């Protein structure tokens, strides 16, 4: 196939042409009315020779045009890609050849019969005399051939080269090469073709009718002229008188026929009418002169367009005066040639039946090819879900259809680009989803292996996530993860309780409070285990989940079963309590006997007495520690039993001050700022304990000889009484003031002012005052002293 493109195109193109090329000389012979066998052979020989030369030249030109295409085809058949330059040249050839070559081809037909006519007129004018109009007729004939050849050759080449051009265009597209070649719109192509299709038969009909009219007239004229010439010859026989000649010519002359006698030089010697007629047709006169010089004997001259001329030689013997005279007839007026018209019709029918359908067929093929490939690709796009497998449309011609194909190709490019983009998005999305799923699995694993139960709920309070520990807690009591008052009556059993035994109201539940925006840290609730009916302690934290706008989208709660911790704590407190109680009896024995011994035995040495005093002090110290431990364990077990009752604060303070272990080194002054009654609602013993603690601290941290003031005041508007204990002792360093009320906190640990103690007194004071509805606070400056104050509600 690689070597056969030129051969194939040439064979098909010139094969189709050959059929018409054989018909055209027949038309030519008919047009010029060449009827004699020898004359026809001569003309056909000339035509044949010219045709061979012309066709050889055309084939050479066509081959040179198609050579880049052929080289491109060869290159694309071998494994290597054709070079871009070759591709460009092949594309240009494939697009330009169907435009350029038909023009050259048709032009060759336009010019083909001009040399034929010229050679007949020049070289063989005496043998085959042509009409005076032969030049014009040949030009028109050539034009008709041109108009016939142009659509045929264009349709042929378009049909043959379009698919090749399409292949090259696809290859160029893959390489990103712009398509070269001359663009010619379908409109221009169709207009030119239809003009040609109309022109070819029209011009042929015109020239043929015109010529046949000429030939018909001339044949009539020649016949008449010949008859008259015979008659004149008969008249002139035996009479050589000039007057007789004139009479004879006059007698034979008609309005259309001038009959005359002339010399062999062509000069009219009888009938001046004929001389005038001849003078009006210089061509005819010239032809007559040439005919007479070559064939002075009996002859009929071929007629010109309007006139025919016949002559007969008059035998010399008859007149003698003018030997070599000729009888001359010049006739006018045309007639009609039925046979010629029939030929014209037949020829036209032949053309109509063969040439036009062939042109139309090839043309249709050259248009249907590109349209078919566009349709196929569009159908692929429509039917296939996968744009990737859609091919590209070859561009057969550089016209609107080619641009349409190119547009569709670009559309497919974009489709594929967007499909690729979508695929990439899809892949990214898959990956993100996989990452998210992995993270979710990790989170689930982390959450499920947590000891704490985790509950997440949405804005409406419905649980959205519960981890494994959470599910166990839910089994224990569904109420742990309830976020609002949706508990149905009858299903609940025992709901969560506060550590002090109050039930949780629905709004107090951790998730409900978190949904309201609160952050809850380590709050305890107590549940009852439904199977064992033992209390379960939960320590819960909860927080709202906020969306990006900060609005509450849900809540999360974390709950830990702290029952063991709580029980261990309780056990520890109970142990302390029991141990402390057990210490009380030995302390009582120690104190009792040491005191008794000191009092009853007057013979004791001073040394022995000091020992007994030390034993008593030690026992007292143990006793205080025992008291502290009991207080703490009571506070922690929440077993501080307070019995609030109206108490006269003034009297209580007096008793407390009086009951202080007398210290000669300090003075305690009681001041009363309000003269009215000072009855508060309080537990007298515990309040005494608080005041005692504050006073003992004040004494402990005051220098010897210092005065300690106890100031009582009443704020009736606030409904409370205030007790302040002021010392002028060492004070509390600023950085230590924050923890002063904490359990076991001792501001003066490891300082010169460390006087021992467990760091329980102020903690207990705060706990006791708080539980009685009062406040406790202090002001202190290092080196200047401290004021501790507490309030109690007025009774």
């Amino acid at each position, binding site marked *: 196939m690689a070597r056969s493109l030129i051969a194939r195109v040439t064979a098909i193109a010139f094969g189709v042409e050959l059929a018409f090329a054989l018909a055209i000389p027949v038309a030519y012979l008919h047009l010029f009315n060449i009827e004699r066998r020898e004359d026809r052979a001569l003309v056909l020989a000339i035509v044949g020779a010219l045709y061979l030369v012309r066709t050889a030249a055309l084939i050479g030109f066509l081959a040179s045009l198609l050579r880049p295409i052929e080289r491109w085809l060869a290159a694309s058949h071998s494994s290597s890609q054709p070079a871009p330059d070759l591709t460009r040249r092949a594309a240009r050839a494939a697009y330009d050849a169907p435009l350029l070559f038909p023009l050259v081809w048709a032009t060759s037909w336009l010019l083909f019969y001009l040399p034929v006519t010229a050679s007949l007129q020049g070289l063989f004018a005496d043998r085959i005399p042509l009409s005076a109009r032969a030049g014009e007729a040949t030009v028109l004939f050539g034009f008709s051939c041109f108009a016939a050849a142009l659509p045929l050759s264009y349709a042929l080449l378009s049909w043959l080269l379009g698919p090749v051009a399409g292949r090259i265009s696809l290859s160029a597209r893959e390489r990103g090469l712009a398509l070269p070649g001359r663009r010619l719109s379908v409109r221009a192509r169709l207009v030119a073709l239809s003009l040609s299709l109309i022109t070819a038969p029209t011009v042929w009909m015109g020239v043929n009718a015109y010529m046949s009219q000429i030939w018909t007239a001339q044949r009539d004229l020649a016949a008449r002229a010949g008859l008259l010439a015979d008659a004149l010859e008969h008249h002139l026989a035996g009479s050589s008188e000039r007057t007789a000649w004139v009479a004879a010519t006059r007698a034979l002359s008609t309005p259309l026929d001038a009959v005359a006698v002339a010399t062999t030089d062509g000069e009219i010697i009888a009938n001046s009418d004929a001389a005038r007629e001849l003078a009006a047709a210089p061509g005819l006169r010239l032809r007559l002169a040439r005919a007479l010089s070559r064939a002075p004997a009996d002859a009929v001259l071929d007629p010109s367009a309007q006139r025919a001329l016949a002559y007969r030689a008059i035998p010399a013997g008859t007149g003698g005066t003018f030997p070599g005279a000729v009888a001359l007839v010049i006739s006018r007026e045309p007639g009609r040639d039925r046979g010629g018209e029939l030929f014209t019709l037949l020829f036209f029918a032949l053309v109509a039946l063969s040439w036009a359908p062939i042109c139309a067929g090839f043309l249709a093929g050259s248009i249907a090819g590109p349209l078919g490939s566009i349709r196929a690709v569009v159908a692929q796009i429509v039917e296939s879900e996968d744009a990737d497998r859609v091919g590209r449309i070859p561009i057969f011609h550089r016209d609107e259809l080619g641009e349409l194909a190119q547009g569709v190709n670009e559309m497919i490019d974009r489709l594929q680009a967007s499909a690729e983009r979508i695929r990439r998005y899809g892949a990214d999305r898959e990956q993100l989803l996989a990452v998210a799923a992995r993270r979710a699995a990790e989170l689930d694993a982390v959450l499920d292996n947590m000891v704490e139960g985790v509950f997440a709920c949405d804005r409406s309070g419905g649980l959205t996530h519960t981890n494994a520990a959470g599910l166990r807690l839910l089994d224990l009591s569904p109420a742990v993860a309830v976020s609002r008052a949706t508990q149905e009556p009858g299903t609940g059993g025992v709901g969560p309780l506060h550590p002090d035994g109050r039930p949780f109201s629905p709004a107090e539940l951790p998730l409900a409070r978190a949904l309201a925006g609160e952050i809850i840290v380590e709050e305890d609730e107590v549940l009852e285990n439904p199977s064992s009916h033992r209390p379960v302690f939960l320590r819960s934290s909860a927080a709202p989940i906020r969306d990006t706008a900060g609005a509450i989208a849900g809540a999360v709660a974390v709950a830990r079963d702290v029952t063991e911790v709580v029980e261990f704590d309780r056990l520890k407190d109970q142990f302390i309590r029991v141990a402390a*109680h*057990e210490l*009380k*009896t*030995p*302390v*009582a*024995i120690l*104190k*009792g*006997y040491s*005191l*008794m011994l000191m009092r*009853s035995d007057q013979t004791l040495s001073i040394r022995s007495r000091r020992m007994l005093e030390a034993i008593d002090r030690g*026992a007292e110290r143990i*006793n205080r520690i025992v008291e502290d431990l*009991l207080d703490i364990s*009571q506070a922690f077990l929440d*077993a501080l*039993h307070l019995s609030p009752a109206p108490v006269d604060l003034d009297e209580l303070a007096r008793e407390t001050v009086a009951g202080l272990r007398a210290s000669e080194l300090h003075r305690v002054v009681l001041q009363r700022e309000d003269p009215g009654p000072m009855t508060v609602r309080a537990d007298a013993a515990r309040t005494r304990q608080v005041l005692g603690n504050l006073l003992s601290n004040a004494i402990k941290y005051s220098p010897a000889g210092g005065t300690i003031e106890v100031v009582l005041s009443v704020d009736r508007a606030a409904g409370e009484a205030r007790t302040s204990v002021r010392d002028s002792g060492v004070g509390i360093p600023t950085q230590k003031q924050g923890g002063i009320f904490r359990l076991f906190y001792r501001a003066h640990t490891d300082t010169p002012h460390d006087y021992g103690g467990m760091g329980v007194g102020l903690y207990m004071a705060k706990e006791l005052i708080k539980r009685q509805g009062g406040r406790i606070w202090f002001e202190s400056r290092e080196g200047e002293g401290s004021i501790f104050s507490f309030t109690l509600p007025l009774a």
Partner: protein
Amino acid sequence: MEKASLMVLVVEDDPDLAALEADLLEERGHRVEVAFNGREALAAVERASPDLILLDMKMPVMSGREFADEYRRRQRSPAPIVVVTAADDAQRRAAEVGASGWIAKPFDPDALVDRVTRLLPSAGRS
């Protein structure tokens, strides 16, 4: 101050503390019987008919409370009872057993004697 001689029953499981209480009271001229639990105490009241009972609450064999109930049930005119306890809620416990008073452990020796003297029936004092 005239010192009446009274019979005081000390019910206390700790022998040292019982001895201390007895010593303190005997020092003041009172007679003292000691019982180490409620059951012994029940036997002692039969034997000695005390004017006052110092009663510990937590004891083996028979607790102070059980003794008090039983004692009240048996005796038509029971002697006053003073509860001596280390419990935090001494006062409440004393009320429960119908005691005339209470002394918290560890006690001030003088306070114990004072309390006993004050609670003794006036008839016995004169």
